[in-house]
């Protein structure tokens, strides 16, 4: 108990509280700081009286990225899960290979794809970071490839939890194919769909490794997701650590709001059932 408490204090509590405090200070190290009030927060948007859109662009880019990946990952994972719960031949082998990319970490994964993308685009004298949109779709492909297997496993677990008699009863009543899926399977799967949606949502918002390794934010910070934008603010230019910390606080609030909404939705569902 005591070691966990100490480690928890070092690893989380003290840095967290101190981080909030430092977001109101100008600092370069943790012992050398000066209180500046809200200056760091205004500097996110205004630099020397001029509007700086880097952070806003990153916020918008991240939101778009998150929406696209949430849709692709969940639809594909759900479809594969349906196919793999029919009891067809080779189910186990398919499940094994679909899940495999998930175990490979973001950095290693991104270099695999960086090589493939750039080898293909080489013929057209382009790279993955030629435009922010090629970078965008590159990241979408990598992240989907990584997470579809994970979500598929959760969907399979959900599908196996639907009581067979419900399906049986619906079939006797004449439901089949699309109708069965729409009227019975989907409503019964709502709790699982909620879990997976929020998992992919927070994963999308927090994405860092793939962004760093695949695009590094290029071209010219145009493909920077929020997490990398914060990292760059901290370690890119000296003297901006305060602004980085302020961005991190905003980032934390965004992620926390998503989590609270998720919690509200899941608890309400549990009450209804």
């Amino acid at each position: 108990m005591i070691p966990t408490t100490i480690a928890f204090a070092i690893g989380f509590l003290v840095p967290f509280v101190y981080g909030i405090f430092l977001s109101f200070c100008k600092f370069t190290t943790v012992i050398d700081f000066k209180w500046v009030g809200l200056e760091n927060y205004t500097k996110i948007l205004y630099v020397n009286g001029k509007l700086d859109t880097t952070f806003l662009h990153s916020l918008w880019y991240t939101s778009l990225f998150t929406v696209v990946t949430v849709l692709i990952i969940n639809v594909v994972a759900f479809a594969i899960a349906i196919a793999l719960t029919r009891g067809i031949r080779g189910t186990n082998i398919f499940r094994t290979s679909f899940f495999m990319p998930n175990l490979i970490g973001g950095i290693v994964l991104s270099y695999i794809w960086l090589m493939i993308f750039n080898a293909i685009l080489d013929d057209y004298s382009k790279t993955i970071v030629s435009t922010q949109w090629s970078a965008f779709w590159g990241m979408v492909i990598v992240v989907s490839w990584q997470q579809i297997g994970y979500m598929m496993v959760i969907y399979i677990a959900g599908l196996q939890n639907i009581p067979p008699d419900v399906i049986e009863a619906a079939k006797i009543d004449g439901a089949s194919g699309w109708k069965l899926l729409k009227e019975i399977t989907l409503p019964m799967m709502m709790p699982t769909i909620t879990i997976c949606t929020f998992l992919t949502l927070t994963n999308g918002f927090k994405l860092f490794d793939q962004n760093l390794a695949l695009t590094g934010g290029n071209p010219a910070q145009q493909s920077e997701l929020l997490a990398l934008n914060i990292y760059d603010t901290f370690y890119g230019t000296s003297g901006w650590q305060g602004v980085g910390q302020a961005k991190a606080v905003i980032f934390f609030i965004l992620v926390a709001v998503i989590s609270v909404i998720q919690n509200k939705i899941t608890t309400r569902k549990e009450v209804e059932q």
Partner: protein
Amino acid sequence: MKDLSTPKAVKRYSAFDNVLTVILAIVSLLWISPILIVFMNSFKRKAYIFRNPFSISAYELSEGFDKWMSGVKKSWFGLQNYINGINKTDLIKVFGTSLFITIFSVFLIILCCSMTAYYITRVKTRFTKIFYLLCLFSMIVPFQMVMFTLSKFANMLNLSNPVGIGIVYLGFGAGLAVFMYTGFIKSMPIDIEEAAMIDGCTPIQTFFEVVFPIMKPTTITIGILETMWIWNDYLLPSLVLNINKYRTIPIAVQFLKQSHGIIDWGAMMAVLVLAILPIIIFYLVAQKYIIEGVMAGAVKG
């Protein structure tokens, strides 16, 4: 239609099912093809990786088989990429560092968090209640929020080494582990522990000889989730560790890219293969536990 309720009955596959099997076979082969492509390219000379990424030969098969075969010889580089890659990244040491950090941290998390969770469910004080709530709270805080302060504190406390980072991981990973253990202990009947106490067990004996064995499924789940996280983690070790001395595999891979962005793709291919191989072996051996762990983790998390 197939009977879902009796899966043990002799199964007849409909035509649709067979078509589905064929489609999925093709898709899943495509799915793992990136890994196969990297494997193939790891034996080729640098110059031919980008020119002919999807072929082992420098020439097209349509140019005749003999020419194709000579193309294979032309691009073949044997194990040279592997030798370069291992030398450039000091991969054997890096692998050891990664292995040590992962095993040590996961061990620490399991040992400390299981005891903590047991303590805070069975001893109810205001402190334990607040501690539990803080653990829940820590799960929603993104790493970027504590990134800077955490790495600076870790440096000040001399935690920039493979042992020290275990303590950092314990602190940052405690939330999930305590939460999952607490969930399990709450559902455990207290009678078993009382019986053990009556038989003369001390609280610590009760924990290790009675409670901990019962928690085995949760321990496996936590072990798998934390292993997957720590083994692949890049940002935390790159900030906390003294990277001139200690590097983990993701850090070594990232550092193969030089500051001006040039990558030795031959060495990179080989290092990627060596980075993936242990994961795939581990996965094929422990597949059952990994998939069950992910399922259990998602339901509780």
